[in-house]
């Protein structure tokens, strides 16, 4: 699968722009910082997910002074000999209008049938340095990209937690104090939401564990490839472990946490609190790895997810690497280019490419214009 052609109207810094990336090779987008390279990545990300990669509201994607932005793309799936047009209109004060092959998009998940992207950006360092939420999102996004209907499972978990937390807060508002007995209705309703939480929670945990198991070996190899240039011969081992925030079984843990939950008015036990631990040579990477190792690990996580998706879908997602060389030293940059996965890749850079690399296409960005 690849993007054959992309056109933008009034999207972020672009009044009008056209891009025809290389179908199978690497397209390098060169431009100074602030020239709009990341906006191009954002446009492609929007095309694939119909939302901003950086979590901005759609209105923020519209060029200042304009009322509508347009992102249009032609996606080619050679293995299914299909060419699909995606046409998105972002409007101020109105819902985004996304059409796939001329038909309005029903569910966001349907887009992943047509186009899937892997994005790496400097902010991904947070995957290693930041809190557990980012790592959960990483594994959950991957789970949904692998099997689209899992989105419903995550939506259910979110809804159950929202309902349970509402109930907990309503108990607080009602003036209940710890130590007093709860009204029978509250106890039996809590039982019901606990049951739902355990039911969907165990499935989420099983899904995450499955993915961690599949990802582990791929991540180890990917990390070694990237770190090789740094310390030739040294084989640092990277491992990923799922760390639940509770002791099994979940049903007992949820029940045990009930009085705490009632006091705090929030569900403190379950998959919404779990973490993924990343270790480098047996040490937690969050606290014991160098900045260079952390950057390499963040990129390796994205690339490993990309490879898992490629294996499972039988076709490579589109790989978007934003400002990747600013994150890596020369040896690691070289190693990345030498081990780049097959498939369409678009990478942005403010400076030079690593030595000896010839990209399939080069695009220059300046003053909101693309020159191919």
């Amino acid at each position: 699968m690849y993007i054959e052609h992309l056109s933008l109207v009034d999207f972020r810094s672009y009044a009008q722009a056209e891009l025809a990336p290389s179908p199978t090779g690497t397209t390098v987008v060169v431009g100074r910082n602030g020239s709009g390279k990341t906006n191009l990545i954002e446009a492609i990300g929007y095309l694939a997910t119909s939302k901003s990669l950086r979590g901005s509201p759609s209105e923020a994607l519209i060029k200042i002074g304009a009322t509508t932005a347009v992102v249009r793309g032609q996606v080619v799936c050679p293995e299914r000999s299909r060419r699909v047009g995606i046409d998105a209109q972002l409007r101020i004060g109105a819902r985004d209008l996304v059409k796939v092959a001329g038909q309005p998009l029903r569910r966001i998940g349907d887009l992943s049938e047509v186009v899937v992207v892997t994005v790496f950006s400097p902010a991904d360092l947070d995957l290693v340095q930041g809190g557990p939420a980012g790592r959960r999102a990483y594994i959950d996004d991957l789970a949904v990209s692998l099997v689209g209907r899992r989105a419903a499972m995550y939506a259910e978990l979110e809804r159950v937690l929202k309902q349970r937390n509402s109930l907990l807060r309503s108990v607080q508002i009602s003036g209940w104090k710890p130590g007093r007995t709860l009204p029978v209705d509250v106890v039996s309703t809590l039982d019901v939401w606990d049951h739902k939480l355990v039911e969907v929670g165990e499935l989420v945990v099983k899904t995450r564990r499955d993915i961690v198991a599949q990802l582990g070996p791929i991540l180890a190899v990917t990390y070694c490839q990237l770190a090789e240039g740094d310390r030739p011969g040294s084989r640092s081992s990277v491992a990923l472990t799922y760390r639940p925030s509770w002791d099994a079984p979940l049903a007992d843990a949820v029940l045990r946490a009930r009085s705490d939950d009632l006091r705090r008015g929030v569900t403190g036990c379950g998959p919404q609190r779990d973490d993924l631990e990343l270790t480098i040579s047996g040490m937690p990477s969050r606290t014991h790895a160098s900045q260079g190792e952390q950057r390499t690990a963040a990129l390796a996580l994205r690339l490993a997810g990309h490879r898992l998706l490629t294996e499972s879908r039988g076709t490579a997602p589109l790989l978007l690497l934003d400002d990747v060389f600013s994150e890596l030293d020369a040896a690691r940059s070289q190693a990345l280019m030498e081990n780049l996965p097959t498939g369409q890749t678009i990478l942005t850079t403010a400076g030079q490419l690593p030595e000896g690399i010839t990209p399939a296409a080069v695009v220059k960005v300046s003053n909101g214009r693309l020159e191919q």
Partner: protein
Amino acid sequence: MYTAAVQDLIDELGRLPGIGPKSAQRIAFHLLSVSKDDALRLAHSITVAKERVSWCRRCFNIAEVQAGLHPGSGLAQHAASEPAGDAHTVLCDICRDARRDPKVICVVEESRDVVAMEKTREFRGLYHVLGGAISPIDGIGPDKLRVRELIARISPEGVEEVILATNPNIEGEATALYLTKLLEHLPLKVTQLASGLPVGGDLEYADELTLGRALEGRRTIGG
């Protein structure tokens, strides 16, 4: 700004479910543009519906008061939000039908679910309309639903089976689970409609969770 009468109309329409300010405006101007007869026909059908339609005192389904039974119920006496008709005397068509089997009660969330079930022509028992589903987000607990009224029917009516047919979404499932636990101590059979298969809930998916539930749903889950 519009004149007071027009603004009132827009405001009233805007309070209807699913009607935003723009739609309210559009409908208001539509009503102003049609003939007086057409507009009054709508007003009349609302008046008649509010006067004649009430809740069944047994199952809380929509029930219609037969013409002539309620000489005194006019709009003037029912200015408050209370449903017209006498809630203590009205029975719905289904509860009045002697051919229906009173030993089996199908529990649904809303009257429109009764209509959906009736269309299948498969079910010959009676209904019980809860008036919603458990949803703490919306401030709806079991006390806001007609749960007590359901329990009160079981023994006097000699109910032998309760079929839980709440909606196949999270709140509907939670309500069914709540009722199952509540009813399991009573001497009756509790069954649940096979759920989870895409029958129009907001979640349409068939993975392990759904399939598991669908299988589970076929078993007797209480009694």
